[in-house]
């Protein structure tokens, strides 16, 4: 078995999840079964293959064009004037579970 109880506890911690005992047991079972299947990737020799992080890595560049026009998935030009207004504070706070005086309120961050 690749993934142990301890691994699940560690990864849950990284992911900011708590998980109850049943969920942890289920994760051990499911992650092992899924990762066993994922291991078939090791049948492939990828030592000289570059990683593809974005579709733009392979399709995004038109070398016949200049500057930012070369990029199909291009950046927009810098905007100096007429910037889009940011969300009004009231709208930004409207979905907050707890807001006060223009702030998001949360429990204490620093423990004494």
């Amino acid at each position, binding site marked *: 078995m690749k993934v142990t109880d301890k691994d699940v506890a560690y990864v849950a911690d990284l992911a*900011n999840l708590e998980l109850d005992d049943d969920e942890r047991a289920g994760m051990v079972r499911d*992650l092992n079964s899924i990762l066993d299947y994922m291991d078939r990737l090791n049948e492939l020799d990828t030592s000289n293959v570059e990683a593809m992080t974005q579709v733009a890595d392979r399709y995004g560049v038109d070398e016949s064009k200049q500057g930012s026009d070369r990029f199909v998935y291009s950046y927009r030009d810098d905007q100096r004037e007429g910037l889009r207004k940011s969300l009004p504070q009231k709208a930004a706070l409207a979905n907050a579970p707890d807001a006060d005086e223009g702030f998001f309120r949360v*429990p*204490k961050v620093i423990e004494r």
Partner: protein
Amino acid sequence: MELTSLTIEGVRAAVESRKTTALALAEAHYARIQEQDGQIGAYLTLCKDRAMEHADRIDRMAAEGKSLPALAGVPVAIKDVMSTRGVRSTAGSKSLANYIPPYDCTAVARLEAAGAVMLGKTNCDEFAMGSSNENSAFHLVRNPRDLSRVPGGSSGGSAAAVAADMAVAALGSDTGGSIRQPASFCGVVGLMPTYGRVSRYGLIAFASSLDHIGPLTRTVKDAASVLQTIAGRDAMDSTSANVPVPDYVSDLEKPLRGVKLGVAKEYFGEGVDDEVRQAVESAIDKLKDLGCEIVPVSLPHTPYAIPAYYLIATAEASSNLARYDGVRYGHRAAGVKTLSETYRRSRDQGFGAEVKRRIMLGTYALSTGYYDAYYLKAQKVRTLLTRDFEEAFRKVDAIVTPTSPTAAFRLGEKSNDPLAMYLADIYTVTADLAGIPGISVPCGLTKERLPIGLQILGKHFDEAKILRIAHAYEQASQISS
């Protein structure tokens, strides 16, 4: 005139000639939803006030004899992973059960600007993670063609709404097949455009390098009309492509003669149901009769697509879903004393089992010691899979495959076996990984009267050609059936 079974063209013509009104069309669809959706479960939220306001605007334009926009009066359904200003947008998750976005998704804004009338938001797997719609935190969706079966996922509500005449068209999102597979299961058309063809602004993110928005419709022409409206550069999404949008609708009628269609044996191997294979093979014969040349191609890395996809998608999801912390919006656990406890409890309570499983898998694949073995390895295999397509597209214009190895499965059939559920996406994840467009078009029924889908994959930004092939096939199969 049956108001709930019109095409986009039919709606526009009827509204323009004053045979009906946009208001009457919207009312007829709400009546249909009232009557049907109790047993199907396609919608999560209806927005009748907003719909009536938009419909009224179209009717006033028609009354004044003004020229009407392309989608005037067309009742549409929007998958609930798209943000809609002032209308609850849940992504099928308890964590966003009360979330009311302050802005509109670009694709939705473009539909409404073109005259479409948004009826409501459709059910889906939580954060678009699933292939059966059984992962919705709210309720199941049943397949309108057979209520004991799943509609597919994750855009199951959108597919069911269109199939059951509860909307003329719908938007879905596709990360590993979530438009095409439910379209196939419900017997409708589903189009995933090229990565970047449609802006993702306002789409609640699952896996950003794989997420696409696209239409589900009852005809190929309707899919072309919706794509026409939503495609094109958007300054709000830097991955939306700076590529001109052709006239998809008028391109549909171009002849198919000389089009080269690739058939890859890797998509007809072990695991494909016999009835699905036969239906797709006879569709290929029909395309040959229509003037296409059939060319064998090879996509040798296909068996590695599912592991590569589920590593990359879950890694990106684990990062994207880190934002649900119970602070700025979304569910916050009650009765907690510290900030870190707020994060953990809120996420534990807000997320369902499959979302937690994917966050865990993705976090594991990105963690120290496993990054190279899993995440980086998967990205390298993504390159190999993409090269397979590049190689094949040197020889052919498009590739035809089954959309899914089986027709719609039964509710509950795979819900306790995550790996079996993942394997259901075997023919669809490849196009998401390569960033190429794909369409699913109905190509027959099984003995149990369940729809089968034909998938047509095209070159980057060549939606026009796969739409044209799908349209010609659809027209020919209607004549002969």
